[in-house]
């Protein structure tokens, strides 16, 4: 249960060992790089170009993999994302590294094919547009650019739908300088436009054209030398050809499906090399030597020293972290508690010198989660499902592994609470026995049924809340004692404890509490006096001491009074734990709604079928929504109420320099 102690390791080695040492550190993956400020005589190598070239090649392989996924997708099951990265032999990885030129060439071919496909698709779209523009003219049986015969002229174009051919004839008859004649054929008409072919004598052409223009006659935008029908056939043939090209290219891509593995390997290979070069670029180097410096958890220092100091000529320097340094944070907890590390991480890791609350939080987390869901059958389903997935996919990512383990523990806790409260799919046993067998059987709750006695559970919920909050305050005290701030410890923690415990002890024998708990609790008079004394000492102490940093006595008392006002904050924090009751009731009641609905089909075969259907759908939904609720609100109780008492967070996670692969993990030798 702790934050791992970090140490600064500096290695000064000879340039000839540079590659080997860097690779060793990368494969061990226990050191976060943090180079010390430049010294004179040291220079940094410019590795930007090399790194970018590696990154580009990794990207090319990634792109090629995406192309493969599009045209030759692998069948993946729903749970395949849990499988994690495949483990490959080192030799296999080295083989891919040797063939990298060839594999990258394949990648480029794949990318090229995908570009070809994209271009062909764009062309098809363009041609389809052309065909669409051509459609109105299909009835025209001469080429569209035909100007006419020896004596006649042909004018083709469109006018607005409102302009009827009769109007044009009329206008032609009244044309200046003299009336002209023409033959107007309507090729096509719809609600927007008319397509016309107008034939007239060549001598009249100018006049006719003028009249037509006055009517809004426009020539078609595309002029083609074929008849429209022929042109359409040509374009369609072209589409056919492009489609064939596409399917050929797709077939070619599918032919590379077997290269998927190689591409993954080579992408990871270039990615690790790029990482290495990135680090290399930050190292101070002199003509013959280089220096690496970074943070290593103390427990791995020996292993690192064994792997490097004993094999190469170098200086291996171990230092403790200096006052002004902010080292990265790495947590180490036992198997149970580490499962909630993900929750802590999502709030923020402890900063330097801060207490790691994971262990204490883990118990409360599992406890509260179970109480909110509190159904034995739901708990069993969650625990078993998580257990099976954990066993089936041992290579899933570490954070996923932790989360699933957390839900498994929460499921067990849910089961325990369910047995205590007598909830098995709500009241399914009672409902089924009553509906189908005519005799109500109830599984008695080991403790009590919350719906029968909500006030009692409310009191317990708030009491658990008080314990949780006091634990938070105690951790704050522990941290202050550890830092030697005894006065702060006394004023911020001891006085508050005295004040709060005094108030609670005064509240318990009071009539308000009696009306809620429905039992009168009588304390011996000594305890009553003690309660009053504690509360008064606490209040007076807070009043005098909370503003102790202020010299001005009036301001000091005012600040003290304000701190006492924080008791309202404590009250709302404690009341917040009523959600333990509310969410627990929600699960149970909705489950019984589902069961009641199911039992409405009555007895008999239809009744059983109806019940099973309603049961499956209803309980799945209820489990899903309440699981979400329990998760969200357990987090909230930890983050807001518990952490609010003592925890700041804001630590930087430990990010070691390691073989950071995307697709495969490489099996280490030995």
């Amino acid at each position: 249960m702790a934050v791992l102690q970090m140490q600064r390791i500096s290695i000064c080695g000879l340039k000839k060992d540079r590659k080997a040492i860097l690779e060793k550190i990368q494969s061990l993956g226990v050191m976060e790089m943090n180079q010390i400020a430049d010294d004179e005589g040291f220079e940094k190598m410019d590795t930007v170009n090399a790194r970018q070239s590696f990154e580009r090649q990794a990207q090319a392989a990634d792109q090629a993999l995406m192309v493969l996924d599009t045209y030759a997708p692998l069948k993946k099951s729903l749970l395949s994302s849990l499988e994690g990265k495949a483990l490959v032999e080192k030799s296999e990885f080295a083989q891919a590294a040797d063939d990298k030129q060839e594999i990258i060439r394949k990648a480029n071919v794949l990318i090229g094919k995908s570009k070809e496909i994209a271009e062909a698709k764009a062309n098809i779209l363009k041609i389809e547009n052309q065909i669409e523009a051509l459609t109105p003219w299909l009835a025209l049986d001469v080429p569209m650019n035909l100007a006419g015969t020896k004596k006649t002229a042909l004018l083709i174009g469109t006018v607005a739908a409102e302009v009827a051919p009769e109007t044009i004839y009329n206008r032609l008859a009244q044309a200046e300088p003299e009336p002209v004649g023409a033959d107007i054929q309507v090729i096509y008409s719809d609600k927007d436009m008319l397509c016309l072919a107008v034939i007239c004598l060549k001598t009249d052409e100018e006049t006719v054209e003028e009249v037509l223009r006055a009517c809004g006659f426009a020539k078609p935008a595309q002029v083609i030398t074929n008849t429209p029908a022929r042109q359409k056939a040509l374009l369609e043939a072209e589409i056919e050809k492009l489609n064939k090209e596409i399917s050929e290219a797709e077939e070619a891509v599918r032919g590379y499906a077997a290269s998927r593995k190689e591409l993954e390997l080579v992408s990871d290979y270039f990615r690790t090399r790029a990482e290495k070069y990135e680090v290399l670029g930050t190292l101070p180097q002199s003509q013959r030597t280089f220096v690496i410096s970074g943070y290593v958890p103390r427990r791995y220092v020996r292993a690192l020293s064994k792997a490097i100091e004993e094999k190469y000529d170098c200086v291996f320097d171990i230092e403790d972290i200096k006052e002004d340094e902010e080292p990265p944070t790495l947590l180490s907890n036992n198997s149970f508690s580490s499962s909630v590390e993900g929750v802590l991480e999502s709030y923020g890791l402890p900063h330097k010198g801060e207490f790691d609350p994971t262990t204490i939080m883990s118990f409360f987390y599992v406890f509260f989660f179970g109480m909110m869901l509190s159904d034995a059958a739901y708990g069993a389903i969650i625990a078993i499902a998580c257990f099976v997935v954990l066993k089936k996919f041992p290579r899933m990512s570490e954070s996923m592994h932790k989360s699933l383990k957390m839900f498994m523990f929460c499921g067990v806790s849910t089961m325990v609470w369910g047995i205590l409260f007598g909830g098995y799919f709500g009241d399914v046993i009672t409902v089924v026995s009553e509906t189908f067998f005519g005799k109500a059987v109830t599984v008695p709750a080991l403790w009590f049924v919350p719906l029968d006695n909500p006030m009692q559970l409310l009191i317990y919920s708030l009491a658990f809340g008080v314990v949780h909050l006091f634990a938070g305050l105690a951790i704050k005290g522990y941290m202050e004692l550890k830092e030697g701030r005894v006065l702060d410890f006394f004023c911020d923690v001891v006085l508050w404890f005295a004040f709060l415990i005094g108030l609670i002890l005064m509240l318990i024998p009071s009539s308000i509490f009696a009306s809620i708990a429905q039992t009168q609790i009588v304390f011996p008079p000594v305890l009553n006096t003690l309660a009053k004394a504690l509360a008064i000492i606490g209040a007076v102490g807070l009043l005098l001491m909370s503003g102790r940093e202020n010299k001005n006595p009036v301001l000091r008392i005012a600040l003290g009074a304000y701190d006492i006002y924080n008791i309202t904050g404590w009250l709302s924090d404690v009341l917040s734990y009523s959600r333990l009751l509310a969410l627990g009731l929600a699960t149970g009641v909705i489950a019984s709604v589902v069961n009641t609905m199911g039992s409405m089909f009555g007895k008999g075969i239809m009744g059983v079928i109806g019940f099973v259907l309603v049961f499956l759908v209803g309980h799945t939904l209820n489990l899903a929504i309440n699981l979400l609720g329990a998760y969200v609100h357990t987090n909230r109780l930890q983050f807001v109420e518990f952490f609010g008492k003592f925890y700041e967070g804001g630590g930087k996670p430990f990010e070691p320099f390691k073989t950071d692969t995307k697709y495969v993990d490489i099996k280490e030798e030995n």
Partner: protein
Amino acid sequence: MSIWSNLGLVYALLGAAVAVFLAGAGSAIGVGIAGQAAAGVVTEDPSKFAKVLIMQLLPGTQGIYGLLVGFITLSNIGLLGGSPKALDPQTGLLVLAACLPIGIVGLISGKYQGMTSAAAIGIVAKKPDQFGKAMLFPAMVETYAILALLISILAVNAVPLP
């Protein structure tokens, strides 16, 4: 059986109805608002589907709380068992009053939780690793729905019924 002779039961049933429909409407508004934001994120990045779906569901709980109170009320006044109790109007009004907190708070908090969820979905869209913190903001709004639920449950159970 005229309505006047059984006014108590009418009031009590009205209470259950108010709890279910106001809280349900609140959740529907909230889930709707959050859903629009969620759909926007998924058009850009379908891989965030699961995360934004969880965010969208957060304002859905008010409706469930309303259902919960409605169900407890129906079961207490005996409507579910098929043998409704004879309530006097005063008791009926007490039940109605007991149902009001979750109804009204559910409606209002559902809407605002939906708006907060939509904002939190914005966090997930830009910084998916801050999911834990983003989830907390809508959960803050829900606290008040839970408090209202608590009072409604306690009050419904506390009303003396024949």
